[in-house]
């Protein structure tokens, strides 16, 4: 048996069954591939109930006496509240309770990072969707009807809706203390002298739109009071421990008195990281006052109107390269529109800050990342967490530089991308090999037929073909600033019949954490995955494991499971050894059996060992724990190691663009991913395919139409996400590389699968049209405007005079010319 550290860090339980020193060192060896479920396609444990319709989501849970909650929200973005009138709502039929801010028992405060948000507003509305009152009624219809009767006497105030305008001295203040919430920096080298040496310089401003998560299951939770001393919350959520903390604060209860169970969760994508805490606090408060179970399910319109969004970001660039195509310097200034409340915005921008350069080697760097309050909907976590916006900008600038240098975009990236020899990131972190960004680039380019397709734009009527590339380097942990939360807990219980219960603190929301945990536990115990049951998280069964975000679910759960298995085996192996008449150190677990190393026929089933342990009353329960390694990082310079390890990816998009109508059809995405190690192949492919399509929606069709802070398109008719008829062919190239980072070497793929897609699509569209477009999404009006005089019907669009119009003012101009 290897030591605990080897086991924890490298998934060495399986390696131990081989007993080869080399295997133990690397965590896994060639021989290990031969057995166990790792990297396979066994059925997901949650799929059968879901496909049969018997999985119970929170809206499917009802209790006797249960009440239905509704929320009365502000419909203006900025106002002073004079009074809130609850009487009409209280008088409505079937209503049991109507609560205002005065009814909050604990602190009237919500907010994961900053306490800048009230659960129920008292004197000031800062965004559409701010809560004025809560209703509990006997039916959902009665509750929402009563909520509509809540009257608010408000005085509208001027709002601010643009993050650059918001930092001006005379901008309306969203909060006391000014609208600039935080600025993050990365400073390395000296930009000014580098700029003097540059042969080409590109300056550009990118306007990157936000995005709605559009999980199919709306936000929802159920609060069950146990007297006034305890409460149980069942919620659709990514982070039960956030809910536990938020509800404890609002009810004034100790953490131990708040039990949060995660219900099967119908998609999250970041939208169920912090927002479910707000719903849970509302339901819990109503449950506390009525002494009855209260269920709150958001209607879709409110869900889209009031919940967090991907941040809209304005990114300004000045990047330069020498004549040979080597990057010399990069200046980046970004403005993240936080909206009315901080939420997770600072943490999101913190990641965006160190992701602004991409996987490229740049000697001189000056990145400034501002987080700014406005009266818009509040920005939050969304798959990629601040990185997709700056990746869009970085990859657009890379193409612009390549074009100025007369270099092919792949060739230009080849000269700058991180690899085995050039592995210092923009923050000065020297990466542990293997560094597979170049490998991703080359493999994707070869598979996509880049050279042939980039050579000439094929034109078929109005349709023009284009191809574009983008890369990402993504840290698979919480950023240094949040590393105190970067730990994870697991419990493994061996049942007397040899079946295994696994509890972890990280959640399943569709991404595949249950099957990943099942696979890892089965691999480590040498049993079939069907023997292992992973149950949904519950805050009373494991210690706070932090949020299920940052592509950390599988590896942080997995390392905790491996730790638990290692501890269990200190008790299991001696029992097996006795049954096998060998030494404990000779016991290996494989294929459902404990056997003597090197003598596979001398074996007993794991079930037999479990029964023997039960008969002897040997402790069958085991706790596991893990934390990411401590890193050094200096926030004042942005230098150091913000993350423990990174996943690299390269997407190549092939598009057809209707130059007349401005329509984009995404034909194919070739997605090369450095995943470390495959845990479960179907789950991995599903993440890549789903990430690409969600990224495609952001790139092409998903536009948040905001007017004075109000979302004008809060429906799936007006906010258009991709359908089955829109999907491209996704060619996934999965690159495994030996690294001891996660369990069996696994990294994370949930977010890298989305991040480069939009940038690659943009670069492909620009290739097809021969223009540079510096905004997202690429809707038809944006494309038509970008084409300007090159539009086939420009003379019609310009009015009566075919020769009119000034090409100089069109967006077809290169950034450097502006």
């Amino acid at each position, binding site marked *: 048996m290897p030591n605990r550290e080897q086991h924890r860090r490298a998934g060495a339980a399986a390696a131990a069954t081989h007993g080869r020193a080399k295997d133990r060192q690397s965590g896994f060896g060639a021989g290990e591939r031969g057995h166990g479920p790792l990297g396979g*396609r066994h*059925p*997901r444990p*949650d*799929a*059968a*109930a*879901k*496909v*049969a*319709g*018997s*999985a*119970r*989501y929170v*809206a*499917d849970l009802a209790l006797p006496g249960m009440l239905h909650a509704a929320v009365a929200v502000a419909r203006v973005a900025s106002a002073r509240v004079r009074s809130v009138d609850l009487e009409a709502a209280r008088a409505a039929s079937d209503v049991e309770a109507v609560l205002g801010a005065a009814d909050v028992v604990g602190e009237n405060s919500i907010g994961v990072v900053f306490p800048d948000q009230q659960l129920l507003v008292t004197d000031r509305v800062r965004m559409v969707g701010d809560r004025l009152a809560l209703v509990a009624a006997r039916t959902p219809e009665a509750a929402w009807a009563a909520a509509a009767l809540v009257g608010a006497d408000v005085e509208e105030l001027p709002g601010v809706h643009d993050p650059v305008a918001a930092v001006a001295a005379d901008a309306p203040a969203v909060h006391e203390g000014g609208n600039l919430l935080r600025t993050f920096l990365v400073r390395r080298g000296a930009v000014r002298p580098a700029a003097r040496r540059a042969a080409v310089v590109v300056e550009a401003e990118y306007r990157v739109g936000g995005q709605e*998560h*559009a*999980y*199919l*299951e*709306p936000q929802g939770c159920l609060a069950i009071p146990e007297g006034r001393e305890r409460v149980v919350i069942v919620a659709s959520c990514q982070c039960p421990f956030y809910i536990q903390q938020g509800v404890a604060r609002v009810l004034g209860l100790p953490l131990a008195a708040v039990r949060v169970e995660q219900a*099967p*969760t*119908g*998609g*999250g*994508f970041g939208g169920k990281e912090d927002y479910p805490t707000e719903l849970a606090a509302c339901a819990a408060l109503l449950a506390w006052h009525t002494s009855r179970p209260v269920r709150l399910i958001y*209607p*879709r319109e409110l869900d889209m109107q009031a919940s967090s969004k991907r941040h809209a970001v304005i990114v300004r660039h000045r990047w330069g390269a020498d004549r040979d195509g080597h990057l010399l310097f990069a200046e980046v200034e970004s403005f993240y529109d936080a909206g009315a409340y901080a939420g997770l915005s600072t943490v999101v921008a913190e990641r965006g800050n160190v992701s602004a350069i991409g996987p490229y080697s740049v000697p001189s760097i000056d990145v400034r990342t501002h987080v700014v309050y406005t009266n818009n909907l509040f920005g939050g976590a969304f798959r990629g967490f601040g990185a997709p916006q700056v990746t869009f900008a970085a990859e657009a600038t890379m193409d612009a530089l390549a074009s100025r240098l007369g270099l092919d975009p792949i060739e230009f990236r080849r000269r700058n991308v991180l690899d085995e020899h050039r592995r210092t990131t923009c923050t000065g972190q020297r990466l542990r090999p293997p560094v597979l960004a170049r490998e991703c680039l080359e493999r994707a380019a070869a598979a996509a037929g880049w050279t042939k397709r980039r050579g000439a734009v094929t034109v078929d009527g109005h349709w023009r073909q284009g191809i574009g590339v983008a890369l990402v380097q993504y840290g698979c942990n919480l950023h240094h600033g949040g590393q105190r939360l970067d730990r994870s807990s697991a419990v493994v219980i061996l049942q007397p019949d040899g079946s295994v219960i696994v509890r972890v603190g990280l959640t399943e*929301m*569709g*991404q*595949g954490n249950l099957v990943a945990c099942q696979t890892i536990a089965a691999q480590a115990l040498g049993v079939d995955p069907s023997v292992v049951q992973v149950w949904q998280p519950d805050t009373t069964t494991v210690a706070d494991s932090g949020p299920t975000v940052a592509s950390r679910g599988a590896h942080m759960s997995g390392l905790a499971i491996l730790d638990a298995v290692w501890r269990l085996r200190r008790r299991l192996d001696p029992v097996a050894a006795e049954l096998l008449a060998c030494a404990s150190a000779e016991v290996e677990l494989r294929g459902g059996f404990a056997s003597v190393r090197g003598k596979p026929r001398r074996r007993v089933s794991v079930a037999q060992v479990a029964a023997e342990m039960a008969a002897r009353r040997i402790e069958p329960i085991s706790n596991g724990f893990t934390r990411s390694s401590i890193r050094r990082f200096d926030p004042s310079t942005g230098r150091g190691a913000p993350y423990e390890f990174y996943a690299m990816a390269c997407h190549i998009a092939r598009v057809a663009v209707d130059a007349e109508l401005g329509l984009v059809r995404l034909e194919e995405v070739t997605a090369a991913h450095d995943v470390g190690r495959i845990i479960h192949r*179907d*789950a991995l*492919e*599903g993440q890549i*395919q*789903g*990430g*690409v*399509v*969600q990224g495609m929606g952001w790139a092409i069709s998903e536009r948040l139409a905001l007017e004075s802070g109000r979302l004008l398109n809060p*429906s*799936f*008719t007006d906010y258009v*996400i*991709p*359908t*089955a*008829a*829109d*999907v491209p062919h*996704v060619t996934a190239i999965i690159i495994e590389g030996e690294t001891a980072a996660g369990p069996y070497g696994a990294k994370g793929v949930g977010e890298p699968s989305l991040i480069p897609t939009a940038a690659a699509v943009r670069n492909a569209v620009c290739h097809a049209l021969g223009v540079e477009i510096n905004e997202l999404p690429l809707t038809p009006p944006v494309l038509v405007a970008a084409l300007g005089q090159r539009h086939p019907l420009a003379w019609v669009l310009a009015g009566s005079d075919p020769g009119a119009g000034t090409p100089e003012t069109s967006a077809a101009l290169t950034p450097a010319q502006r």
Partner: protein
Amino acid sequence: MAERVRITLTLNGRQRTFEVPPGRRLLDLLRDDAGLIGTKEGCGAGECGACMVLLDGEPVTSCLVLAASCDGATVVTVEGLGGAPGALHPFQRALLAAGGVQCGFCTPGIAVTGSSIVDRNERDPAEQARLLAGNLCRCTGYTKVLEALAAAQEAGHAEP
């Protein structure tokens, strides 16, 4: 206006009678009166397809159908696609085999629509995708769902 309307329908193969207010949605009848929670509400506006059921053999969004209009109709929900309790339609089995289930909230609606595509023997992949376009999914990117459709179609062809 009558307080309640008495309707009889064939629900997953069994004749059932309900008394419903005239404004009650078929979706609510299924979930709250019949206890068939497999049918999900994702938008309440006929946009997402999570509430898809077969009404006289055609996939419809049950959030836009009034229960009172279903007197005499045949309704099949995700729970009834396999024809017997616990049984699965070949398309549901294909979804499992293809790994086409992730968060699962859209899955019942996709199972309903997909089963009807298989049953009507639609074999053109582009037409299959078009018919499935009324069912939104945010996790899978649809690839494995479409693979499951093709596989179920193949399997159905192999064992007529």
